[in-house]
C-alpha cells in the first residue's frame, strides 16, 4: 500500500507573494491545501496603544501607517470620527478636497491591488502598468501634502492646506489619461485567458458567508452584496455624487479583482464631479475654527468609512482630556483575512497566492 503524508509548508513571513510579513502555515497533501493557518502580528506596532499617549492631532500621522497604500482614507476615517465626537462642521471646500484626495487614494490602492495581483499570478508586466499610474498619483499627493505615501494631510476640522495651483493641471491630465490606462489593464490582465483560467471559479466566497464573517469592501461586493458605505450610509458629502457600486456575481477571485477595476472607473467619475464642483466654489478657508488644543467632550464615537480594502472604522473614546482615552480601529484587511482558510481548502498552492491576492490585504493594517 502506498502511504501518503500531509506536510506543512511555512509560507512567509519572508515570501514574495504574501504582500508583507504575513506567515501562512500551509498543510499540504501534495500540492493540495488541507488547511491554512494565517499567523499575523509581525508588523504589530501597537498603534492603538500609541494613540493613547498622543494628543488628538498627533494620532493622525499614525493612521497613515495603517493602510499605507491608501493613507488619505485612513486620515479621513480618523478625523471624521473626532469631528463627529466634537460636533465640528468643516468648510465645504475642505469637504471637496477630502473627497478628491481620498478617491485618489482609493485609485492608488486599487492600482496596487490589481498590479500585485497580476504579479502574484506571474505576470510581471501587469504589475508595472498600474504602478506607473500610481506613481502619477503619488506625485500629486506630493504636491498636495509634501509626502508621497504617508501624507498626514487631513486635520481635525479640515485639511492642512488648500490644493496648490499646480495640482489642477496635473489632475486634469491624469483624469484624461486614466480611462485608457484602465482599458490597458483590462486588455493585458482581465481579458487574458490564462488569467481567467487562474481566477474564475477559484476561491468562491458565498454571499451568506461573506456577510456572516464580516467581510467588507471589494471582497464583499465581489460576492454580490451591494454594500458600499458611500451609498448605504453616505458620510461627508458622498451623497452629492453620481456613481455606481460595482458588484460581482459568483464571488470568485475574478469577481473580486474585477470589482476593483470597476471601482477605479467609478472613483474616476467621483473625482471628475468633485473637481468640477470644487472649481465652482469660491475660494475660502479649508479649516474650520477649531481651538489649537483639542479637548473633545467626554464621550465616545464609532465612525465608519468605506476604505480601499473595506469598512474602516474608528472607535474613539474621550475622557475630556487632550488625549484620547482609547482609539480602536476596525481594520478591513484584518477581518477579511479571517476567511482565508475556508476559501483556500482544496485548492493548490498557486491558488493560495491567487486567493490571498484577491482579498487584497496590507500588512500594516492587519497587524496595526
Amino acid at each position, binding site marked *: 500500500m502506498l502511504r501518503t503524508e500531509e506536510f506543512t509548508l511555512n509560507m512567509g513571513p519572508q515570501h514574495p507573494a504574501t504582500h508583507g510579513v504575513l506567515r501562512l502555515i500551509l498543510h499540504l497533501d501534495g500540492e493540495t491545501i488541507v488547511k491554512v493557518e494565517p499567523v499575523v502580528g509581525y508588523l504589530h506596532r501597537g498603534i492603538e496603544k500609541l494613540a493613547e499617549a*498622543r*494628543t488628538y*492631532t*498627533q*494620532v*493622525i*500621522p*499614525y493612521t*497613515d501607517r495603517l493602510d499605507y497604500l491608501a493613507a488619505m482614507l485612513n486620515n479621513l476615517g480618523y478625523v471624521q470620527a473626532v469631528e463627529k465626537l466634537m460636533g465640528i462642521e468643516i468648510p465645504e471646500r475642505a469637504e471637496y478636497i477630502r473627497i478628491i484626495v481620498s478617491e485618489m487614494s482609493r485609485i492608488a490602492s486599487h492600482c496596487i491591488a490589481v498590479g500585485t495581483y497580476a504579479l502574484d499570478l506571474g505576470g510581471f*508586466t501587469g504589475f508595472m*502598468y498600474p504602478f*506607473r499610474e500610481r*506613481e502619477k498619483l503619488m*506625485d500629486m499627493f*506630493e*504636491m*498636495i*501634502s*509634501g*509626502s508621497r505615501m*504617508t501624507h*498626514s494631510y487631513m486635520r481635525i476640522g479640515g485639511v*492642512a*492646506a488648500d490644493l*496648490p495651483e*499646480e495640482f489642477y493641471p496635473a489632475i486634469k491630465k491624469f483624469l484624461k489619461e486614466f480611462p485608457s490606462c484602465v482599458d*490597458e489593464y483590462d*486588455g*493585458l490582465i482581465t*481579458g*487574458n*485567458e*490564462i*488569467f*481567467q483560467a487562474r481566477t474564475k471559479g477559484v476561491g468562491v466566497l458565498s454571499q451568506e458567508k461573506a456577510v456572516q464573517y464580516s467581510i467588507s469592501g471589494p471582497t464583499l461586493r465581489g460576492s454580490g452584496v451591494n454594500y458600499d458605505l458611500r451609498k448605504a450610509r453616505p458620510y461627508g458629502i458622498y451623497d452629492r455624487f453620481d456613481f455606481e457600486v460595482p458588484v460581482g456575481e459568483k464571488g470568485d477571485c475574478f469577481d473580486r479583482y474585477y470589482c476593483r477595476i470597476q471601482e477605479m472607473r467609478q472613483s474616476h467619475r467621483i473625482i471628475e464631479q468633485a473637481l468640477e464642483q470644487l472649481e465652482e466654489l469660491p475660494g475660502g478657508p479649508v479649516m474650520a475654527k477649531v481651538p489649537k488644543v483639542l479637548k473633545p467632550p467626554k464621550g465616545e464615537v464609532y465612525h465608519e468609512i468605506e476604505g480601499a480594502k473595506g469598512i474602516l472604522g474608528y472607535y474613539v473614546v474621550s475622557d475630556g482630556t487632550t488625549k484620547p482615552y482609547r482609539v480602536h480601529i476596525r481594520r478591513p484587511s484584518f477581518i477579511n483575512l479571517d476567511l482565508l482558510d475556508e476559501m483556500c481548502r482544496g485548492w493548490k498552492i498557486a491558488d493560495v497566492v491567487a486567493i490571498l491576492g484577491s482579498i487584497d490585504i496590507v500588512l500594516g493594517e492587519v497587524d496595526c
Partner: protein
Amino acid sequence: MFGSGLLKGLAITWKEMLTPKVTIQYPDEIYSLPDRFHGRFKLDKDACISCGMCVRACPNNVIKMETETVARKKRLLKYVMDIKYCLFCGFCVESCPKNALGYEKDFELAQYKLDKVPLVLVDEEPLPPEEKERLEAEAAQKIAAAKAKKEASGGKDKGGE
C-alpha cells in the same frame, strides 16, 4: 474566441515597447520637487523665538531643544532632530508661530554612521559667564535707562494733565 485575449495582451505589450519611457534617470535627471515637499528641515535661527511649540507638536519626541535665558531673552543653544524617529508629518513646521522652521528640498538623508543621523540644526556653546554678565548688565542698564526716560516723560505727561 479563445486566444483573442492572449493576442490582445501581446499587442498591448508591443505597443508599450515603442512608447516613450517614463523612468526619470535619477542622478542625471533632476526630479522637480513640489514646493510643499517634506525634506530636510531648516531653521531660521534669527526668527526662532525658542517657544517650544514644535517640540510639543511633535508626535514622536523627535525634537530636542536646549535654551538658556540671557537677559530675559531665550537663546537657542541646541536644536537637534533625531531624524530616524521622524514621521515627516509636518506638525512642527505647521505649529511654528514665526515660520522659522521649514523644509529644504533635500531628501538624501541617509547616513553611513548612526551618530550622524540626528539632524543638528543649531549647536552653540552657552555664553561664557563674563559675557553673560556683561550682556545682562547692559540689558539692565538699558532697561533702567528706558525706565528713567519713561518716568521722566511720564512725569511730564502727568504734569501736563
